[in-house]
């Protein structure tokens, strides 16, 4: 059924030309990096300040203000780009705005102090793409995040959006599958299953109804690229999903998205509305007779629902408990019907693959892993943010060239990938090229792309304990090895962090970890021991220090550390005295203080409050 305000489209190209003809390419433009992280860094205040400043100078009509998705370089947000000139200003404060408008917008002058300064050369950098953080990246999926207003479907169409859908409808499902297979695109949810094969299997599977489901339940703590894509370029995901529905023979798709991502949900809703209005969704899409619709389902905060069989159960409203596979969802998925389940990044790749062809897609990457991969580069790293790099890049390039190394001159210790299902890699592995196979071989996984850098102050035993706490809590409880095994591993790890470890604990942990991997029902159990196993493999001496010497080399485990005050450095300023929640600090004003160990709960507040570096942890 055509709705009243639905737009008649002869061809996407015609529509695009019409949109472009209405645009004023020479109009000055201010682009603000938005998204949840941009807003958390103060982008909303910057937008308000820009609006009022433009109004003050009567420039509202002349200068266009565009809020895009997240540009990825979280560490220097809030940030803007000004055109013409492609001028990049980062780390902005509201008080910088009047100067930007009066100098750059009105007089074409650059505000030098707001330019990005390269930390290694002290050089000022004018353009966003010349910043070292961006230079080694190949931004294919994330490119739209800096280019378009996610709520403006015309922006998406203007840069070629929905022409891949038009092409797919024209060439037919079999050709779509051929192109995707030839491109070598593998599922970006972490497991890396070939997408073309998955769609082919779902297409061939017998069933009256078929479904395509987008897994946007980005539950890995430390990964946020799916959120960023949904917020910044929701139409890419929608377009990929419509193509998927058409290919496998489905008329309805579900996007299962975390409730913790309110902005992504809002953008999706608004993008779906627009896609309907333009006739990309609904009945008789682009006059081809194909009908397709998308429903949003909000996940309610259960990590295990990121695993495919559990995610489908969650949509069905069933009690979420793991089940054995086969049958695989491609044969028996949602409501027992053939279902293709794809990650956000996979679906966003589809319009690129179809639009640009298999060869274009596969011209970068390694033998077995094609294209680019998005990582959330976070933790103890200077340039934290979302990065997109060609498969095959080394970890060292990512951490040092793009990430700018470790802050405060601290020493690198480990890099963690794959979230609670992955592992930690040491310095010696940094020259390894990154792809699906190499990471698995090294004892971790690609996962959904979280990459957390850890420095000398991160305790590897405590990190293993942290992840086990997480998986143990999220285990659905159906199968014994995962339910009981992770609990037992957690008990042992907790004991070790308390200095109560036994000599044979490591052997028990290893045996139990391997057993859980072998016999658990679903991916949660099959990967839960990895953080412990990989840290035992690469950082064994740290475990031994806890067990044999009762010491935590990273000075993290509370039971094994002691706070004291260095008398020579203490000025007696009383700040720690005032802040200490348990009154464990004694001393007169202007005289060196002391900590009473019996009263100290090791909360770290004195360490944080001391301005003279006088609190020591040992």
């Amino acid at each position, binding site marked *: 059924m055509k709705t009243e305000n639905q737009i008649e489209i002869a061809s996407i190209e015609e529509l695009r030309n019409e949109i472009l003809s209405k645009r004023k390419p020479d109009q000055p433009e201010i682009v603000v990096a938005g998204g*949840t992280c941009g807003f958390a860094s103060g982008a909303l205040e910057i937008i308000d300040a820009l609006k009022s400043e433009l109004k003050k100078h009567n420039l509202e009509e002349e200068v266009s203000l565009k809020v895009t998705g997240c540009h990825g370089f979280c560490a220097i947000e809030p940030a803007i780009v000004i055109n013409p000139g492609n001028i990049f200003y980062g780390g902005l404060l509201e008080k910088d705005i009047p100067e930007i408008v009066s100098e750059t917008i009105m007089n074409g002058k650059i505000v030098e102090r707001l330019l990005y300064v390269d930390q290694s050369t002290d050089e000022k950098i004018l353009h966003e793409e010349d910043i070292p953080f961006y230079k080694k990246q190949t931004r294919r999926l994330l490119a739209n995040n800096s280019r378009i207003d996610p709520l403006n479907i015309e922006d998406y169409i203007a840069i070629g959006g929905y022409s891949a859908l038009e092409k797919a409808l024209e060439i037919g499902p079999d050709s779509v599958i051929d192109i995707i297979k030839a491109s070598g695109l593998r599922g970006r949810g972490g497991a890396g299953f070939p997408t073309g094969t998955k769609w082919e299997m779902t297409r061939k599977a017998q069933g009256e109804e078929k479904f395509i489901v987008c897994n946007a339940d980005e539950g890995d703590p*430390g990964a*946020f690229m799916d959120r960023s894509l949904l917020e910044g370029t929701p139409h890419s995901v929608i377009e990929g999903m419509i193509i998927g529905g058409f290919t496998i023979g489905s008329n309805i798709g579900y996007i299962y998205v975390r409730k*913790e991502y309110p902005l992504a949900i809002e953008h999706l809703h608004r993008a779906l509305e627009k896609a309907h209005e333009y006739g990309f969704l609904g009945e008789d899409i682009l006059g081809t007779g194909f009908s397709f619709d998308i429903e949003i389902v909000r996940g*309610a905060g259960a990590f295990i629902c990121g695993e495919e069989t559990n995610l489908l159960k969650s949509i*069905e409203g069933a009690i979420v408990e793991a089940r054995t596979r086969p049958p695989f969802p491609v044969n028996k998925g949602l409501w027992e019907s053939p279902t293709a389940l794809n990650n956000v990044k996979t679906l966003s790749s589809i319009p690129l693959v179809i639009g640009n062809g298999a060869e274009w897609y596969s011209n970068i990457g390694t033998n077995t892993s094609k294209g680019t991969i998005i990582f959330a580069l976070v933790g103890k790293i200077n340039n934290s943010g979302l990065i997109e790099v060609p498969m095959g890049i080394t970890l060292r390039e990512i951490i040092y060239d793009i990430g700018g190394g470790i802050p405060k001159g601290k020493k690198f210790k480990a890099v963690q990938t794959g979230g609670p299902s992955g592992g930690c890699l040491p310095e010696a592995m940094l020259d390894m090229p990154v792809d699906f196979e190499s990471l698995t071989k090294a004892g971790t996984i690609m996962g959904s792309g979280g990459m*957390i850098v850890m420095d000398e102050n991160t305790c590897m035993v405590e990190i293993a304990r942290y992840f086990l706490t997480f998986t143990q809590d999220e285990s659905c409880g159906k199968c014994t090895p995962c339910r009981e095994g992770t609990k037992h591993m957690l008990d042992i790890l907790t004991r070790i962090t308390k200095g109560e470890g036994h000599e044979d604990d490591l052997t028990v942990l290893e045996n139990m970890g391997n057993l859980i991997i072998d016999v658990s029902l679903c991916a949660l159990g099959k990967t839960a021991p990895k953080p412990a196993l990989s840290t035992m493999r690469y950082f064994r001496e740290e475990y031994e220090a806890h067990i044999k010497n009762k010491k935590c080399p990273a000075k993290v485990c509370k039971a094994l550390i002691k706070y004291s005050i260095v008398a020579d450095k203490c000025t007696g300023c009383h700040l720690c005295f005032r802040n200490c929640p348990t009154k464990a600090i004694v001393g007169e004003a202007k005289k060196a203080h002391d900590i009473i160990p019996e009263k100290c709960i090791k909360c770290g507040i004195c360490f944080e409050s001391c301005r003279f570096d006088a609190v020591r942890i040992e």
Partner: protein
Amino acid sequence: MKKSKKKGKMDQATIERLGKIDDVIAQYEERYENSHKVLIELLQEILETFNYVPEEALVRISEKCDVPLSKLFSLATFYNSLRLEPLGKHHICVCVGTTCHVNGASDIVDNLQRKLNVEPGHTTADGNFTVETVNCLGVCARGPLVEIDGKYHGNMTPIKVNKLLEKYENGKSDRDS
């Protein structure tokens, strides 16, 4: 209906609440009239309406939608975000994702627990604060992150959180201050 003998005693607030629950159920039935029903969306709508999932909503859903009450309880207790207790006046959510963790989120949780005398997942005795933890809010570059009444505060430390809390103490300010 089975509950008829209780009906006479219902106060105005209860009647209103049940009315709201019925509205949410009616909208749900309409939304999925022509397709498979997605039960979790109904629970999400209840959560959105009340800021928690009242027990009476589960009872009502069970009666009206023909779902066993035990199953509804099972779902409501399984999902982290479906809380069964009402929220306090201010909602504090500490992100305990990996990045926030390596940057000291557990010290923030410990500090809040000690300062407000409340376990994560619960509300202070005076009803002013509900403290919860969340596995990841996806704002890792700003960790440790604390969300108060929907507003994100990045690069937090126990002392910074203590300062923030002053703004939200009883009688001092309303939401979104």
